[in-house]
């Protein structure tokens, strides 16, 4: 048995804080930037995700029970505090596309009893469906609550014939009792990375993007390889002064928009959000 494997890789079982230069030697570290000033809340990303990742439509009753299965959801807030201070939301609504943050120090990873979710070499939180036993500990521990559990055997009802012909053969159809979540369209990345490896190169910037980023009509979602210093994402992280390996970002000046959500929980997310702008003089 692979006892040797276990011993050899024992250090991998430890959960470490991300450190400076962690991905210097690896070809890929997938990351994202979401510009909240560009996001118009149109839900194109959500539907694209349904199409790409075989997400089941659960129906009204189950949605009402909190059993929705949208890996990316558009949240709409009215204010930062607890109530609306003005009579009307004068500065519009606050849209937030929320998906798995692919944390570098993910709270979900160390608690999975079977290691169904773990950190991949390219910096993603994997979710191995067939390994999952459904303890839901990962979801309990996820501060963003972006993990979705198959409360029902959705394949039974979600794709009445011939809707199932639309299913993406590269993505497993999940049956009941399995946790699932955004994978950064791993199937696309995997296909791209394999092809690039055959060609003896690494993926070019923008060669493969997630379904949400591809659909986004305002290009609010930028997806790319943070390990490649010349990629758009890496440059954006740099100009926004967000460091993957820091939990408190030091900004040299005001007006730099980048931030990561719930960073103070030391999750080190891989998604940087850019602050929404409003012309307060108007």
């Amino acid at each position, binding site marked *: *048995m*692979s*006892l040797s*494997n*276990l011993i050899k890789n024992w250090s991998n*079982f*430890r*959960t470490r804080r991300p450190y400076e230069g962690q991905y210097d030697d690896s070809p890929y570290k997938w990351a994202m930037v979401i510009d909240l000033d560009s996001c118009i809340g149109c839900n194109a990303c959500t539907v694209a995700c349904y199409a790409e990742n075989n997400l089941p439509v659960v129906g009204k009753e*189950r949605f009402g*029970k*909190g*059993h*929705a299965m949208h890996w990316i*959801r558009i*949240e709409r*807030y009215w204010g930062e505090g607890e109530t609306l201070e003005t009579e009307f939301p004068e500065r519009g609504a606050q849209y937030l596309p*929320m998906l798995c943050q692919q944390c570098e120090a993910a*709270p979900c990873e*160390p*608690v*999975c*009893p*079977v*290691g169904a979710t*773990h950190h991949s070499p390219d910096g993603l939180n994997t979710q191995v469906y067939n*390994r*999952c*036993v*459904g*303890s*839901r*500990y990962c*979801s*309990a*521990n996820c*501060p*963003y*609550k972006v*993990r*979705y*559990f*198959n*409360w*029902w*055997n959705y394949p039974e009802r979600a794709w009445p014939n011939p809707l199932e012909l639309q299913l993406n053969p590269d993505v497993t159809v999940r049956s*009941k*009792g*399995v*946790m699932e979540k955004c994978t950064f369209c791993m199937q696309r990345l995997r296909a791209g990375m394999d092809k690039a490896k055959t060609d003896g190169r690494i993926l070019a910037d923008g060669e493969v993007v997630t379904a949400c980023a591809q659909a986004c009509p305002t290009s609010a979602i930028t997806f790319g390889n943070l390990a490649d210093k010349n990629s758009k994402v890496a440059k954006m992280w740099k100009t926004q002064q967000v460091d993957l390996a820091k939990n408190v970002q030091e900004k040299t000046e005001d007006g730099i928009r980048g931030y990561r959500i*719930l960073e103070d*929980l030391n999750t080190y997310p891989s998604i940087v959000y850019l602050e929404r702008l409003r012309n307060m003089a108007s």
Partner: protein
Amino acid sequence: MSHTVPSHPQMDVQIERKFVPKQKDLGEDVNWAQINKDVLRSLEKPRPAFWIIFFSALALFSFGVYCEVYQYQTGMGVSDLNNPQVWGLYIATFIFWIGMGHSGTLLSALLHIIHADWRKPIYRYSEAMTTFTLMTAALFVLVHMGRLWQFYYVVAYPNERWVWPNFTSPLVWDATAIGTYLTSSLLFLYMGMIPDLAICRDNAKGARRALYKFLSLGWQGTDRQWGNFKVAYMTMACFLMPLAVSVHSIVSTDFAVSQNPGWHVTSFPPYFVLGALYSGCSGIITLFIVLRYVFRFEAYMTQPILNKLIKMTFAIAMVWTYLDLIEYATTWYGSDEVARQDLVYRATGDYALQFWGMIFCAMVMPFTLLIRFVRQNYVVLLIISLILNVGMWLERFQIITPTFAKSHYPWTWTAGWWPSWVQWGIVAGSFGWFTMLFMLYCKIFPSVSMYEVKEMVHEQNMHDKLHGAQAPAHQTALGAIPEMNGGKI
């Protein structure tokens, strides 16, 4: 009260004693033959009332099984669990049962180690309770799993997939700890029963005799057997002590290592262990009263023993209360704003009833144990012990549900989430399952340790002798060591 403490002749004789001596744990009139007779009587053909209760429990259990089968077939969705309420009653009740399983071991192992003899008449059924509560708790681990049929993925064993479970997960620790604890508790219970099984063997006929013969492993009560037995039993007790503490500490890490507000607390391990002992002790009081009444064990389950048990329960309750309050205090004065909001939510939000119910049942009710009338009135005590356990169940509920209802992420807050009938059914079924197991146990195995009560009687007499009390003649006549009676007890 039906049972009165016999007067002590030594009071007149013992001039050197300045204080009123302790009440004796057992009455003067207990003799060895009576012990066998009384205890073996409890194994006789049950009365109709037994079957009525037993089948009610079975019905309850069957309903639980039906709920679980329904959930298994249809999906976890029937439980109305959702994102973020992913755990619900299953984990709450799991912790409740695990907690119940702690005092039996404490009574038998810890008190055994420190030679507190009053444990002897009551430790057997407490241990049985431990074993069955653990078995019930283990069921909840399975019930809770989304893919029950893949539960073996959690177990570390060489397999064709060449993968191991994730050793950093508290759930793996849980599985390991509970497995170990269950095995050792079962072994400890069984081992302690061997001499008694021999007695049963010698008094039984037919299939029962075969069963006892098989289980008593050829116990003859020889000197060597007694010697080995004592050593092994003490070793097991020493092994179990830290294990019992570790199990609930580990269960507490399910919460303590997580991110969630209200869980992220360093005092959780002692808090959980004490909570476990608390609920376990009140469980023991409940069963004490029930067994005492049903099997007419008045002679062995005496008021002094109960008094000690109550004192211990009260002490544990107070430590637990302290830990609970200190947890609130640290949260309140701490810097974690979300945890503070969560605390306020618990006390004032959708689950305030459960919160204050817990405070009342588990923090206020123990003070009634200070009243002598309560301690001596078995009916009242029964009700109070049940209330204490309701409080402890509510405590588990309000650790889990409000935290999920209001965690770090406002978008996924839930308002007034409530479990479905399936969850309640399975929880009810678990009580049926426990009752069933315990009732069967009581009718198959002696629920009071015969040989140890005998020891106790003997020691009490020896004690009296040494200190000049006059022992009844029929007891001193039997001699000091059981094996002197031709290997039979």
